[in-house]
């Protein structure tokens, strides 16, 4: 069984909502669309207060090449363009839409019928993906059309679909694979066509044997696509780790990107979104969200319209447990703690995790005992204990020499530290600062 080569940890999986059917979520009363839902420039609103919109109407244009358009997930009236506390913890501009009825744009094909034929050429596919505002659905929200446009001089050799879902608790991708396998496979075929390759891998960790079996069975009808079962290890869903695990190549340090080793990595949710965008003309405005937590009455997977407040999902899953200490947007390893439950679901919200106060409290910080467990756990072969110290002492030059920029912020170091040291907090600070220094230096040149 394949896996990546360096480091890694085994957090307890806690896939509470595994095997649960995807349930459609009721429409919210008011939907909120933050303009920064992706990596890159924020989108620019193209509606004004009082405008009527339908489901699928574009409400904000992409603010640049590395950016993505935003579409309304509801029909109704634009109430205001104001600010809302989003997953970043800060107030960011957002479009508020009061929901009236549920009227869809006519161009969207709402039939369930599976279409496995597509006569579009690669440029047309990429253009359609771009026009549908599709971004990476794994959490980083990198605009998909950018990934599908390799920089000149590089050539893709294969498409790797990330279906490992290595984060504990989350099951959104898992449930999607069980319910929409053919659509996903068609989406993968489209992605392969878009970058002009004939080889596609779907990587699934072997804690999802049902998904592996089903996808392998269905993949027989799609030439070139192969399901690759992987050993369970975090952070296998990291792009670099996944490429290493599947095709045994290691992507060099930034600024190199996966295309340097001929790989294009897409999330399985993205593949599905691509299918819907290209075949069904449906822009990205809904996604599967896992709502989970140990004290939650009914952990579930919801098909949710974007802009729905998380509190509504929590209510539908049995209500907020009394002992809730932390609401996390995403999984427990890389997700962000949220300030309140009113944060709207965005393109990258793969899950909502409720942790009890007891679970979420960090242990008391002690001295580093130099046990080297963080060094053994780091999937990038770094020395987190050292980088954290350099961050604390603000020694940016040394940190850069110690390859801090290659850190993927997976959290293995903090997870494993017996002294409960907030290693990643410091490393992240250090990485951001060093990144700023490097950008400044490059700008001067």
């Amino acid at each position, binding site marked *: 069984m394949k896996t990546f080569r360096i480091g890694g940890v085994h957090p307890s999986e806690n896939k509470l909502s595994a095997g649960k059917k995807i349930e459609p979520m009721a429409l919210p009363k008011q939907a909120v669309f933050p303009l920064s839902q992706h990596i890159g420039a924020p989108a620019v609103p193209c509606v004004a207060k009082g405008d009527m919109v339908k489901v699928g109407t574009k409400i904000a244009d992409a603010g640049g090449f590395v950016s993505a358009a935003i579409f309304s997930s509801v029909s109704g009236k634009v109430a205001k363009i104001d600010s809302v506390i989003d997953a970043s913890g800060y107030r960011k501009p957002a479009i508020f839409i009061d929901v009236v009825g549920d009227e869809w744009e006519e161009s969207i094909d709402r039939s369930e019928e599976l279409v496995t034929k597509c006569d579009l050429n690669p440029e047309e596919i990429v253009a359609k993906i771009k026009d549908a505002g599709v971004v990476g659905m794994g959490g980083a929200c990198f605009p998909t059309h950018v990934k599908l446009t390799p920089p000149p001089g590089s050539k893709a050799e294969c498409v790797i679909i990330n279906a490992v879902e290595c984060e504990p608790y989350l099951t959104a991708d898992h449930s999607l694979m069980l319910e929409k396998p053919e659509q996903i496979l068609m989406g993968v075929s489209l992605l392969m066509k878009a970058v002009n390759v004939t080889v596609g891998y779907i990587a699934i960790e072997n804690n999802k044997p049902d998904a592996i079996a089903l996808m392998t069975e269905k993949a027989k009808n799609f030439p070139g696509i192969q399901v690759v079962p992987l050993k369970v290890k975090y952070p296998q869903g990291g792009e670099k780790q996944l490429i290493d695990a599947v095709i045994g190549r290691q992507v060099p340090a930034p600024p190199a990107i996966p295309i340097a080793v001929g790989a294009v990595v897409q999330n399985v949710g993205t593949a599905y979104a691509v299918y819907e965008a290209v075949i069904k003309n449906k822009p990205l405005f809904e996604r599967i969200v896992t709502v989970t937590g140990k004290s939650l009455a009914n952990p579930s997977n919801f098909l949710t319209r974007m802009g729905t407040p998380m509190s509504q999902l929590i209510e539908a899953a049995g209500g907020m447990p009394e002992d809730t200490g*932390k609401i*996390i947007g995403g999984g427990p390893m890389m997700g962000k703690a949220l300030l309140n439950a009113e944060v709207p679901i965005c393109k990258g919200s793969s899950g909502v995790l409720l942790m009890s106060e007891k679970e979420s409290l960090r242990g008391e910080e*002690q001295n*580093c005992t130099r046990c*080297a467990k963080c060094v053994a756990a780091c999937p990038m072969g770094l020395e987190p204990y050292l980088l954290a110290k350099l961050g604390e002492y603000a020694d940016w030059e040394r940190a850069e020499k110690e390859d801090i920029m290659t850190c993927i912020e997976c959290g293995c170091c903090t*997870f494993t530290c017996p*002294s409960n040291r907030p290693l990643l907090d410091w490393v992240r600070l250090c990485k951001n600062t060093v990144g700023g220094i490097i950008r400044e230096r490059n700008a001067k040149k």
Partner: protein
Amino acid sequence: MSPHVHSGDSVSKNMRWVIIAMLPAMLWSFYAFGMGAVIVTAVSVASCVFFEWAINKYILKNDKCTICDLSAVVTGILLAFNLPSNLPLYIIIIGALFAIGVVKMTFGGLGCNLFNPALAARVFLLISFPVKMTVFPEVGQMTAYADAVTAATPMAAIKAQISTGTLADVSLLDLFLGNVGGSLGEVSALCLLLGLVILLASRTITWHIPVSILVTVFALTGLLHIAYPVEVATPWHHLFGGGLMLGAIFMATDYVTSPMTPKGQLIYGFCIGFLTVAIRVFGAYPEGMSFAILIMNAFVPLINNACKPKRFAKEVKK
């Protein structure tokens, strides 16, 4: 701040495993040296914990309780392991004060010390009280403490080989089981190996350091024994005799004073093994382990700087 989950690993958990791993050797010492061993261990542990608490409270004025991490207990047991069972109490207390007060807390407590506290204390005592520290009681005196009958240790006998040129009559089986004189914890190689198994099974340590030390010592003494069969004892005697096992398994593997990367750990282990053999065979002391480890402790920062882990997608530099 992500990550929001933790492995549940903790310093005290690791320390607890170390203590559990030391139990077989400790029990053997109680069996072999009787009351003396119990007294020495108890006093050593108690004084180490006391000094840690007192220094934290009255000198550093630190509210944090660092006793709970059990590192002082580990230091106490390790110190006792390194002492003869008939050592006067005041010497033990001085040793504990040196270990905790000078070697550990002066540098900032657990994690900041350059040298292994228990080892440094042992060497300190060895130099300060050379006679008391080098007479070891014979095995099997259950109730004796200060009046215990002493005898030469096997390592001293082996050392004497070089000058006398006659083979010392030391039973290998006795060495392995621990039916010989020596300091508390070092006598039974079998019990110490059991401890190693516990440490490895609980993933408290990795195999790199102990194995590299033992292999190096075995190989080097083996070569020397072939070259000088009379002067140098067999590699088996070296392996099971003296403090080698204790040092390789419990002392050299101390987190704080050992290198971070597997490669660094192998280099560290090899150097310790090399120095031990050099001191044992060519030096004045019959025992070389503690000096070898202390010397290599000083090189750890250098090793850490030189041996970087293999970076992702990068050839290892140097």
